[in-house]
């Protein structure tokens, strides 16, 4: 028997309906610690709903979410969220936006701004601390969103299609940076995306969801070496095969 894998997030029997539309039915999933797991599927498969249920932002109709064995039903300090639309306060500088999670927790100003400065540098935005969101590009705004999630030092980062509002060139760069960031942050990532390439490029595990009602249809673990040049991944045979394999599986749901 292989050694049990350390699971940080346990999803058990989660169901959710919106009126007569069944968004999720009986989802059972485990998320291993320190890995990046993507939730991938066509629109309507409930991937964002599942992520928001894990975040405690939406109540499930049935089932439980446990973090490190403890059942949770509301947002908690062990999880941090990165929003699709960035959700930055337009009246606050990048620095204050990044420090906002710590501000809400009542950390002293000097201390939280030191932490925020560290993570702003970490996501490659050093020098932009004093800028307001409207002075930053889409990609930079999402870097602020990511730095905000990192600065509260949560074990689990929940990312809801973080790159969908970022243009293509910046998205590529950001994906590369995310791979680099992951290697020096010992965190668990749960990543929602509708892009097959993106999922294969960055994920240790990919959970494929099928739509109406959302259910787990397949779990794929692409074995791609990400230690070298990130550009090489796009030409890696295993990468291309996995993209193709997932596409074959999802094709039936495309209109």
């Amino acid at each position, binding site marked *: 028997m292989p050694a049990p894998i350390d699971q940080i997030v346990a999803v058990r029997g989660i169901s959710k309906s919106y009126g007569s539309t069944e968004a999720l039915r009986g989802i059972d999933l485990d998320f291993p610690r320190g890995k990046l797991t993507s939730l991938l599927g066509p629109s309507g498969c409930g991937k964002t709903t599942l992520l928001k249920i894990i975040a405690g*932002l939406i109540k499930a109709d049935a089932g439980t979410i446990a973090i490190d064995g403890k059942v949770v039903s509301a947002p908690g300090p062990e999880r*941090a969220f990165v929003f699709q639309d960035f*959700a930055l306060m*337009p*009246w606050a500088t990048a620095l204050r936006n990044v420090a906002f999670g710590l501000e809400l927790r009542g950390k002293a100003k000097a201390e939280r701004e030191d932490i925020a400065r560290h993570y702003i540098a970490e996501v490659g935005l050093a020098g932009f601390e004093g800028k*307001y969101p409207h002075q930053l590009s889409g990609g930079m705004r999402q870097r602020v969103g990511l730095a905000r999630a990192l600065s509260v030092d949560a074990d689990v980062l929940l990312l809801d299609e973080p790159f969908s509002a970022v243009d293509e060139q910046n998205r590529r760069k950001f994906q590369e940076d995310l791979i680099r960031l992951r290697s020096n942050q010992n965190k668990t990532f749960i990543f929602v995306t509708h892009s097959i390439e993106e999922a294969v490029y960055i994920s240790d595990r990919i959970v494929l969801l099928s739509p109406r009602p959302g259910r787990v249809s397949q779990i794929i673990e692409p074995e791609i070496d990400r230690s070298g040049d990130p550009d090489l991944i796009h030409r890696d045979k295993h990468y291309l095969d996995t993209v193709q394999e997932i596409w074959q599986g999802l094709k039936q749901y495309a209109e």
Partner: protein
Amino acid sequence: MATGIRTESEAVGLAALSARGEVGGWRDQPVLLRLVSIALFAGIWEIAGRIPVSFAFPTFSATFSAFVGLIADGSLPLAYVSTLQPLVLGIVLSAFLGVGLGTLCGLWRTGEWLLIPVFIVLQAAPVAAFIPMVTFVYGIGMTAKTLAVMILALPVIVLNTYKAVRNVNGSLIVMCRSFLGTRWQVVTRIILPDASPVIFAGLRLGVAAGFVGVVLAELLITPTGIGDLITFHRSRADYAEMYATIASIIALSTLTLIALQWVEVRVFRPETRGA
């Protein structure tokens, strides 16, 4: 209510003035531009007064020297002491009460249900008609004047705040909750700052309406303060003095609105300060 419309459009005009600012060249000299604008206005007034448009229309220079005279003999400062007390009290009360009630209605369904219809009716009603009624109940003192200011200022402040709070960016509220913000923190750190531009638009309209209220009260009820000074000089056909008094209250109202805008940009929306 023609006076009310004038002041409101003035407030809107001020907002447009600050929205501009990315155009280069001579437009980058707002102070100079404003001085030129004032000089032009004074010049046209002077010419119109000299034609003359009407025997009851004094020139700019006559009005200005009347203004100096009114300050020198102490009658204008004395009138302002009497006018400013109910005005400031009424506006401060309306601002706090209005923003408080508006926020409450925006957040709490029952409050919305109970209060918002009342304020919609109050805003739609020709409220100047209430002023004699206020006198009937509260006499002709400070209370009546303060109430007149509040009757005019409060509805627009409440309704703007309510609308602003209802239209707050929902995604920011979810963000605040996800980072463990309490209900109180959601209100103070997200809802009020996000709503502040519309709340301030309401405050500007409310302050302008408050000036209307106090002058109306002094013309209609209590022969004191600025209203009395206007009536007094009109009855003596001292048109220059009358115009000086009217111009002084218009100037004060405008300066107050500009100051309010300055506070808004400084304190609440620093990101809108210049490009």
